[in-house]
């Protein structure tokens, strides 16, 4: 209801201003314009316009950020893949450790089965305890893996939000000329293996 009243006020004030302008009366025009300015500075309007300004400012700074770093949108899927690779790599390392622990346990069990000097028994038992601890310590892989998967999810959500914004900003894919860091399979398709590197070097006479 009040919005309708306000709109009626605005129409009336605008009509007054137009009439003043058409009649060429500067005093009347100034009065009408002042009334318009007063209408404009109403509290609700002020708050709304401030919010609109802040929103506009934020949008331009995000756009500026995306423009100054054109790789931002492209880096995110890359970051997800790299994090996924960390999970894979730690999983492989943990399994390798567990393989070695299993082998050592078998050896320790074989030692136990043989006639040994009495003083060896507590030593072998202590080795077995440490082997169990080493196996248990590998649970870091599960915990860190779960945390990394969570972060991958967060990056995914930021990526989607940024992709939406990117439609307004227009982000392009370019080579930044920086170092790539450790190669991640399926991500760094241009990365080469040691064999490839050796062949390349040999081709260069090295």
């Amino acid at each position, binding site marked *: 209801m009040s919005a309708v009243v306000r709109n009626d006020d605005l129409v009336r004030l605008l009509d007054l201003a137009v009439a003043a302008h058409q009649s060429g009366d500067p005093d009347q025009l100034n009065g009408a314009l002042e009334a318009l300015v007063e209408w404009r500075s109403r509290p609700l309007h002020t708050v709304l316009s401030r919010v609109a300004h802040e929103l506009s400012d934020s949008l331009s700074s995000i756009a500026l950020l995306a423009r100054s770093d054109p790789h931002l949108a492209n880096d995110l899927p890359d970051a997800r893949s790299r994090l996924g690779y960390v999970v894979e790599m730690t*999983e492989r390392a943990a399994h390798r450790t567990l393989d070695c622990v*299993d082998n050592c346990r078998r050896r320790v069990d074989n030692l136990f089965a043989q006639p040994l000097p009495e003083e060896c028994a507590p030593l072998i038992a202590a080795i077995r305890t440490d082997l*169990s601890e080493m*196996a*248990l310590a590998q*649970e870091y*892989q*599960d*915990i860190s893996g*779960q945390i990394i998967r969570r972060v991958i999810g967060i990056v995914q959500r930021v990526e989607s939000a940024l992709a939406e914004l990117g439609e307004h900003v227009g982000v392009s894919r370019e080579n930044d000329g920086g170092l790539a860091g450790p190669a991640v399979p399926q991500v760094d398709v241009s990365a080469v293996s040691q064999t490839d590197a050796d062949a390349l070097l040999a081709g260069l006479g090295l």
Partner: protein
Amino acid sequence: MMDKNMNILIVDDFSTMRRIVKNLLNDLGFTKTGEAEDGNSALAYLRSTPCDFVVTDWNMPGMTGIELLKAIRADAALAKLPVLMVTAEAKREQIIEAAQAGVNGYIIKPFTAATLQEKLNKIFERLAAAA
């Protein structure tokens, strides 16, 4: 006391954790273990293979551990199966939810061999007392 010949199913989406739990159980004298990587495959296993005890993670893709627990309690043939939850989920509400769903024990990762042994003892003492 615990029957060392019982069949234990280990459910976790991380193969390293399945292996660690299996190793710990072996250390405690339990050698008959099966593995599943989520609730769905665990249920399929339980419906086809005799099993006496389930150790399950909570957060898994597919069917989660809490859903598995509820499915076990809702299945007349499996309802009495003891379930131990071994999970990184450490919120009060979650532990309460698991308890309300009928979990027999709850271990928060990271955990130690001593914790596993203690919880197993407790579960089987309680089951023996109830029997």
